[in-house]
């Protein structure tokens, strides 16, 4: 592939939305009440919309006849490049919200920079997505505040979720080979530069929520290299089920 770095770079971005959208999709019909259920599904829909834009572009770049669905559903476990954070399960609503917030806060600053990409397609996608993600971040941070500063029970659940998922935040700011190549070309974002802003912002929201910033020095990583937690396999079982069980058919 001529543009392999760009292709991998796009997948690195899109897989996050794909896997997170899939996780949120599990919740549809099972939310804490109708209003919240509808809101979470909206976020899932936004994310899948983003995924389609990215993969349609990736499909063009790959130029080997693979469609957006082939790219989304027919890769092997190790070829998914999403960060570990987004594949973590909906253990309870605090985990869903913590995962969402910790990702949204990153996603928002990331897209803000991606709008400046010299790749006009990526810049345009970022420009569209950022409006959606601004809303996601507003939704998830509001819920962090509600659960953090709600009842004793919700506070302890929220604190636990933040503490458990914190170990996956550092990976957001790891550079891959594709990242480095794309940064050099002015297409990609130097995520390392976003790190300080991210942690400052997140700490601010946690403080408002009367939650503690976890004191953790050792972080998990690997998603960006395709080395995932055990959760991803099960996500793929469902995501890929139809395409694997009935290969080469149209739906």
């Amino acid at each position, binding site marked *: 592939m001529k543009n392999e770095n760009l292709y991998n770079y796009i997948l690195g971005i899109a897989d996050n939305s794909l896997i997170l959208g899939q996780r949120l999709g599990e919740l549809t019909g099972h939310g804490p009440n109708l209003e919240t*259920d509808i809101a979470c599904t909206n976020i899932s*829909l936004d994310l899948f919309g983003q995924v389609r834009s990215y993969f349609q572009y990736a499909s063009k770049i790959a130029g080997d006849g693979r469609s957006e669905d082939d790219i*989304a559903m027919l890769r092997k476990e190790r070829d998914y490049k999403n960060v570990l954070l987004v594949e973590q399960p909906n253990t309870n609503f605090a985990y869903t919200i913590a995962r969402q917030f910790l990702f949204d806060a990153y996603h928002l600053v990331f897209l803000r920079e991606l709008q400046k990409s010299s790749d006009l397609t990526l810049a345009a996608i970022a420009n569209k997505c950022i409006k959606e993600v601004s809303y996601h971040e507003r939704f998830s941070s509001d819920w962090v505040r509600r659960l953090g500063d709600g009842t004793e029970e919700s506070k302890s659940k929220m604190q636990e979720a933040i503490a458990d998922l914190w170990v996956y935040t550092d990976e957001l700011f790891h550079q891959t080979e594709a990242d480095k190549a794309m940064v050099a070309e002015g297409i990609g974002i130097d995520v390392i530069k976003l790190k300080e802003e991210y942690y400052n912002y997140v700490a601010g929201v946690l403080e408002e929520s009367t939650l503690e910033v976890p004191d953790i020095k050792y972080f998990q990583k690997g998603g960006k290299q395709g080395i995932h937690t055990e959760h991803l396999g099960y996500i793929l079982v469902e995501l890929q089920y139809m*395409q694997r069980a009935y290969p080469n*058919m149209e739906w």
Partner: protein
Amino acid sequence: MSEDQIKNLEAQFEARIERDEKIEPKDWMPEKYRKTHIRQISQHAHSEIVGMLPEGNWITRAPSLRRKVALLAKVQDEAGHGLYLYSACETLGVSRDELYEQLHTGKAKYSSIFNYPALTWADMGAIGWLVDGAAIINQVPLCNTSFGPYARAMIRVCKEESFHQRQGFEIMLKLANGTPEQKEMAQDALNRWWWPSLMMLGPTDDKSVHTAQSMKWKLKRKTNDELRQQFIDQTVPQADVLGLTIPDPDLKWNKDRKSYDFGAIDWEEFLQVVKGHGPMNKERMKARVGAWERGKWVRDAAMAYAEKKQARKEKQAV
């Protein structure tokens, strides 16, 4: 109020409906009208949110991204429709939480069709095509029903639902024109969903207890049997377009009636499913009750947070 006065009010009330005037929540209404509406609207709302489950369970397995977003949007609409309907019901002085309580304790009913399992992807097609098709036949006349909030909710529901049936039919069409395996999947789904869809339009007229009163209040415009006939007459040609066979050996065109004759419906099965013995009754209720109970601490926390925020605001103002 004396009995005569009430009779007089009731007569005026019926006359208003007869003149096609709408009844609004604060208007005087006979107790039976209120109760019937709470029952029917909440049953309708429950059907929407229980109906999210069989389709919701295929969201993560949808075969393409296009299908996935369509299904997500459809199931989300069902949550929205449940919400509109619960709101309409709340104008009659009963809270959504009370209505949930009735659902969760088995006091309230919901459409029996959702007690059948969604086993293959083709079921997403069959549900959209047949179940939504039957639902639309039931719902369109309700846009003009006598109780204002219900009619308004139904207008919104019908407008939004117009894509649901097409979404289902498109899935079926793609399968029917696909590989033999796909076509077989579509036929199998039609076989399993056809009869429950016919039952969905309610017991036969001679067994239906509510029809006469419902007609008067414009909760119904046609009888169950008429609706069923309408559904069959419009669906059979659609099955022909798909090249699929309706699983009824007795189905045939009746020239004189200009309608299809059809075979006997297994009402014993219907009765058993209504009574709670369908394949999925227990699972569906478990899922609903589970979500509600797991959500309790979340709802409580949000409420507690709002109260704290309000208290802080008031303190600042002092």
